[in-house]
């Protein structure tokens, strides 16, 4: 099923995601791809697409100016107002997975992703934390055989 969303509605969706998941450090790419994931999910789910079409239009009519031109604080208030609508929860459901699974986001967060093809972390810092002393690794007693103490 092709999407009925206009280009303007797609741009609005990107802005909605930036307001809903506000990271100063994230570039535009991940938000655009997360928006695309929502559009794709909606393409396979008429109910979600219907909610998107209506919901995005409604979003622009919440204040005097279009959503995209709202102050971040006001935008957040607008989103809080619609937080429990199926329109918004439907978007969040898909977007939270797509956004934080984006490799560009991983780079920003410092997550290194797949490790097996690089030989794991055994020689790449699995134990390089140096701001605490090295703790013991052996058990003090023997937890599994300890009898009930009370």
């Amino acid at each position, binding site marked *: 099923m092709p999407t009925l969303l206009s280009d303007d509605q797609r741009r609005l969706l990107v802005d909605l995601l930036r307001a809903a998941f*506000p990271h100063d450090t994230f570039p535009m790419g991940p938000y655009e791809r997360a928006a695309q994931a929502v559009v794709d999910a909606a393409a396979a789910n008429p109910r979600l697409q219907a909610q998107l079409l209506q919901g995005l239009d409604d979003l622009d009519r919440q204040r005097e100016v279009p959503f995209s031109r709202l102050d971040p604080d006001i935008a957040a208030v607008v989103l809080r107002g619609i937080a429990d609508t199926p329109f918004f929860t439907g978007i969040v459901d898909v977007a939270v*997975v797509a956004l934080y699974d984006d490799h560009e*986001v991983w780079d920003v967060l410092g997550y*290194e992703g797949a490790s097996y093809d690089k030989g794991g972390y055994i020689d790449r810092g*699995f134990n*390089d934390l140096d701001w605490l002393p090295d*703790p013991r*690794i052996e058990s003090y007693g023997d937890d599994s055989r300890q009898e009930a103490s009370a």
Partner: protein
Amino acid sequence: MTRFDYDDSDVVVIVGSGAGGGTLAHELCRRGFKTVVLEAGPHLTGEDYHNDEWAAFGQMAWTDPRTTSGSWAIADDFPNLPAWIVKAVGGTTTHWAGACPRFKSHEFAARTTYGDIEGADLLDWPITLSELEPYYDQAEIKMGVTHRHGRPPLPANNNYKVFANGADKLGYRDYSTGPYATNAEPYDGRPASIQDGFNFQGDKHGSKWSTLVAELPKAEATGNLDLRPDSQAVQILHGPDGRATGVLYVDRNGTLRRQRAAVVSVAGNSIETARLLLLSASTRFPDGMANSSGQVGRNYMRHTTGTVWGQFDKPVRMYRGETMAGVIADESRLDTGRGFVGGYYMQTIALGPAFFAKFVAPGSWGPKLAEIVDGYLNTAGMWIVGEDMPQGTNRITLSDTVDEHGIPVANVHFDDHPNDVAMRRHGQQQGAAVYKAVGAHRTIETPPYPSTHNLGTCRMSQRPGDGVVDRFGRAHDVPNLFVTDGSVFTTGAAANPTLTIVALATRQADFIASDFRTGRN
């Protein structure tokens, strides 16, 4: 590849190839029993696995529909995903983390030890720790559990360093990196861990024990294993005398097959095990097979769990290395003075950003979530796992929803018991204190994930009226029908369940071998 005839009525048919089914298969095959394992999922191996959370989950998790009800948070947060169970050869041992504590002796006598807890349906196990001890030894040796029988401990990874230092500062004494069924050094033909993480995604390297890499290949080598992937059991058949005679299953082409059997074992992991017994209703067994007590599906348990995250000013990089490799056992003690009965463990846990963001505060968004995720690199994590109270009303029933074959799926009903709530609160407070003791500027308490420990539903009991199976996991009502997974747990104890499932399956194999001569080579 061994193949037995559909009409060969000498075989043992095992439904499910995970911890319970895979172990029983190996133990029976090496004793000469012709064994057919029916596994609903595909036969994937390390090469197929993804070092990627969502991709791996989509590839292997049981995502066929299930429904939920009850007051537990899962019914809101993940209404169609009550449990995280793997549907593939090896079952959930492909995604498990490997924590292997034993039960404590009082945990086999929960009713006697804790007394009559209102709203709980506690019952003593019909077996004791001392009866199971030799099998715990065998299971630990089989699985290569670290810190046991001469197996060296796993080294401290970054997540453990934070966890253990915090534990020490708080005055806990019983912390260590084990016991885990992951090789710190090569063992049993499997390599040492290269600290590559992604244990929850199937361990590509094979240093973690699973039935896929250990029990099933050994069973296969005997020539007595007929492993049938993509084969979902839908009904256990019985004869006029009430004995099980075979299993009907849907194969990969959607064709219904009948495999005759001398003995049937069900090891589909609590939810599916109860579902299959309920589906196997007949004129003789109107409420489902092995269900004259009405206990099939009841007393579903999932452990009292929760996660605590600590965020620091400096990097942790919790994802580097084994996903879980640290235990604090102090709170697993018997001590009813804490406002609840039962104990709990704290265990290190790491998630990647994708799961972290999805699970840290389900359904949340906004600046608060963004800030938490921004702190990902500096985050340490621990999981709390403790004994939950069995309740007859927490149960698996057949839903109105059907699967792709038109078969009713399981509905999972669960209400937290007040004891569960009190324990979770205590655990989360203590967990936060561990991290604050080493300078966490923020701690976050995450509600339970879809259940990874699924227990009860066919509990073991001395008296047939109190449960579904006897002390060997044999159905009270059907002498050649066995249950071989965590469904048989009379109570849940604090310990992660798999070591006990493996020990019980090993013990059950001894029993079956001495009791059934049929099918012996």
